[in-house]
């Protein structure tokens, strides 16, 4: 299920003959990829050097110059997401994000920002997740000040009309139909989340439950907006062809004029201890191939004891991170019973998170046999741990992904923004490769044994609807 929701679903026009970039997907969605502090030799003076500072009103700013091309990416990350919504108002965070585009402000008529971005060939969009809402634009450096003015303006002067509210609510309802209701796998994923999490708000979909979405209104939205769209609850990340001093001066001139809101502690319902194994099954006539996924509750980078999240990150890579992984090698290559098999750890979230394995059977293989084989691989790591060789290779892959992220400044902006919006710091990002390097095989075995407990898990089955 797409957890991160975008305002604009259309491809940014010409996808040209772009390849399926798995790396890009990984780097973008990714957990905690980071720029290495021991970064490679840089030709340009300050390319890749991270500068961060606070404005007087508490807004945090991170600047990473990259002068290879005359473009800047500007992202504002609000530390507010769907998991911060009041009860009964699911979808509200995402709805407010949409209204930021839809509604006029005191200083600008509706659509003025869109036209301004378009007039310079810029690209802008936004997304909402459990823990953050981010707005981004990529433009020529000469337009940066204008973009910052627009972004600072809509931080506090939004004035939607009744019609804006009604129409945009219909838009997000259509978005829900597109992304969830028309897709059996997405419907199942939503129910699995609602079963995995017993109290923590990640049980509620970012897009919202349909019946609650239908009742969202401006009264709900405005209190949310007023409280959370404040400079002291936001992180600005600028990457590209710009100097930190320039960004600082522009930020003071624009965001610096916005008054701070109350300090906000993110206190959320806490997940109770889990003691059961749960299953969720969806049968649907559109499905012709079965699949399963099993999830466990594990700590995130923000909640983990030192070293545990890094160990989980490496565990996910070793168990199911690609075609060298144990699940792939065992289930696809050696046993030939799976068409796909993988594992995933979502580390960059504020609260406890999930660790997932997925697989679908190959040919006549039975789903139950496949599940048993996947569980056997998990049990084998719990019992015997991982080898030093596979651990070293996993570390290489994870650290390398960070070096490669330097190729795309927008990826870097995403890494810093998501980390800072989920309780991390610039230092956390920079030290991440070193922390990964320090993980031992014993630590990986320990997190597997501690968290991947079969009797405390949630499994989802997607099954064909058969006649009998």
């Amino acid at each position, binding site marked *: 299920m797409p957890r991160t929701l975008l305002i604009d679903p*259309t491809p940014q026009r010409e996808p040209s003959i772009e390849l399926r970039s798995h790396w890009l997907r990984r780097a*973008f969605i990714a957990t905690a990829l980071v720029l290495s502090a021991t970064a490679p030799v840089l030709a340009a003076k300050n390319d890749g050097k991270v500068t961060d500072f606070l404005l007087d009103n508490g807004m945090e700013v991170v600047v990473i110059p990259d002068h290879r091309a005359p473009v800047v990416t500007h992202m504002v990350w609000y530390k507010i997401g769907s998991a911060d919504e009041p009860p009964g108002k699911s979808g509200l965070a995402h709805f407010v994000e949409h209204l930021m585009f839809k509604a006029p402000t005191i200083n600008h008529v509706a659509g003025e920002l869109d036209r301004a971005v378009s007039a310079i060939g810029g690209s802008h969009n936004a997304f909402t997740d459990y823990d953050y809402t981010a707005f*981004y634009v990529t433009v020529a450096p000469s337009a940066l000040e204008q973009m910052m003015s627009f972004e600072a303006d809509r931080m*506090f002067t939004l*004035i939607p009309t009744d019609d804006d509210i009604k129409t945009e609510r219909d838009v997000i309802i259509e978005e829900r139909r597109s992304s969830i209701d028309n897709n059996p796998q997405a419907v199942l994923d939503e129910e699995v989340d609602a079963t995995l999490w017993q109290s923590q708000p990640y049980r509620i979909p970012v897009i919202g439950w349909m019946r609650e979405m239908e009742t969202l209104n401006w009264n709900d939205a405005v209190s949310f907006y007023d409280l959370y769209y404040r400079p002291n609850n936001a992180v600005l990340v600028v990457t590209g062809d710009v100097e930190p001093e320039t960004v600082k001066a522009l930020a003071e001139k624009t965001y610096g004029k916005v008054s701070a809101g109350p300090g906000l502690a993110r206190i959320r319902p806490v997940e109770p201890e889990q003691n059961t194994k749960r299953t969720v099954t969806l049968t649907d006539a559109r499905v012709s191939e079965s699949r399963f996924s099993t999830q466990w509750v594990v700590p995130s980078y923000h909640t983990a004891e030192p070293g545990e999240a890094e160990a989980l990150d490496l565990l996910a890579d070793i168990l199911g991170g690609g075609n060298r992984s144990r699940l792939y090698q065992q289930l696809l290559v050696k046993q030939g019973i799976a068409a796909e098999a993988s594992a995933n750890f979502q580390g960059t979230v504020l609260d406890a998170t999930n660790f997932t394995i997925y697989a679908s059977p190959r040919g006549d293989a039975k789903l139950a046999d496949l599940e048993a084989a996947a569980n056997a691989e998990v049990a084998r790591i719990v019992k015997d741990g991982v080898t030093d060789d596979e651990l070293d290779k996993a570390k290489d892959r994870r650290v390398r992904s960070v070096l490669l992220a330097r190729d795309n400044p927008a990826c870097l902006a995403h890494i810093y923004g998501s980390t800072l919006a989920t309780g991390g710091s610039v230092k956390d990002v920079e030290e991440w490769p070193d922390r990964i390097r320090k993980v031992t095989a014993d630590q990986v075995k320990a997190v597997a044994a501690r968290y991947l407990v079969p009797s405390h898990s949630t499994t989802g089955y997607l099954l064909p609807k058969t006649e009998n």
Partner: protein
Amino acid sequence: MTNQYRGAFGHALPSPGEGRAARRITPLAFLLLAVLFLILPALTAHAAMNIQEVKSQKGITAWLVEDHTVPIISVRFVFKGGTTQDPVGKEGLIHLMTGLFNEGAGDLDSDAFQVKLDDAGVEMSFEAQRDGIYGSMRMLSLRKDAAFDLLRLAVNRPRFDQEPVDRIRAQIFSGIIANERDPEAIAQRKWLRAIYGTHPYSRPDEGTKVSLAGITPADLSAFHKAIFARDGLHVAVVGDIDAKRLSEKLDQLFGELPQKQTLSPVADVAAKLGQQVEVNYDLPQTSLQLAFPGVGRSEPDFFAALLMNDILGGSPYTSRLWEEVREKRGLAYGVGSYLAGYEHSHALLVTTATRSDRAAETLSIVHRVVKDMAQQGPTEAELEASKKYLIGAYAINDLDSSSSIAATLVGLQVDNLGIDYIQRRSALIDQVTLDQVKAAAKKLLSAEPGIMVVGPLMGGKG
């Protein structure tokens, strides 16, 4: 309704920056995209980017953008002749082949090859498209010798061993089965048959269960030999490598390949429009797709059509379709249009997905917007705005990282646009007149479209 605003915030806005060229930003939206080859838009001037033509001793040519800022090298290449080359009865052969280049080559079996790839930290991928087989590689420049050597093996001496052939075939097979009862996938197959008839474009790239079963390692080797030859090759390289070193690598990679490809000829085909393909299923949301005639990349009115499409539905947030369907009425989350261009056919496509109980209304709005564009064309102001957008956006959307620059440069070579195209592009857009755009609108949008509908039976046609 008013917001409780927190104080005035007014200051004069600076004038918009003149869209200087650049590269950057790959929006997440890319990832949501169905794989369709769209016509490359024109490029904008990219002042900072110097493209060198590198010719190796053995006569292999590549376009190079040298940039040592980041220690990364991206390679992109294409061999002409994609899935259209699948022989009748063995559809899916080319697609299967592209899944096997990292599954063993030379003396290295699948496992040994992948261990080496992993050790060298190379990202290598191959992709079958209708008109070409594309390959990509990205590496840290420190490891370039090992990386290029693995790519050399993959390109020249792929093994197609039985075990990986069967495994990758089974994965593709699973994908085919998974789509068998999916209404969208069913409709797409039906649509391709309806508009392309018996032309190779009507066939699913991944083949069918029956055709896949009959493909042997010997078939794969034969087609590899026929397609991987020097006269069908285009190459682009971006990043931390100089021309001299690249020239050596080009010989190593491609210098031993045969001179000439052996391709089956593929006819041009005009998509058969003016028909409706409908797959009825009880869904909460109905997908709509309309196909109009397109325009070839080399035709003189290409840019007029590109601008017209941008105003109609190409531009996010500001296009007419976006305004009428989403902004004013909230009928859809996504709505837009694009020019789809292949070597042998092209079309202008409009797509949206809308609540099923109002699908007929949405379709009629789309028809009205299209008809208005066909009859009146855009306004002068719309055209000016669109020119600015298209000139500025190229760098941001298509030249945003070393791999996207490499992909763009290969596309320019395939379309035969010339190494100076990026410099010329802004002028090509600027000089288009309103009358030309109106003529393009009339030419493309006056036709009766092909329409695909996936959802419940619509009450009343739009």
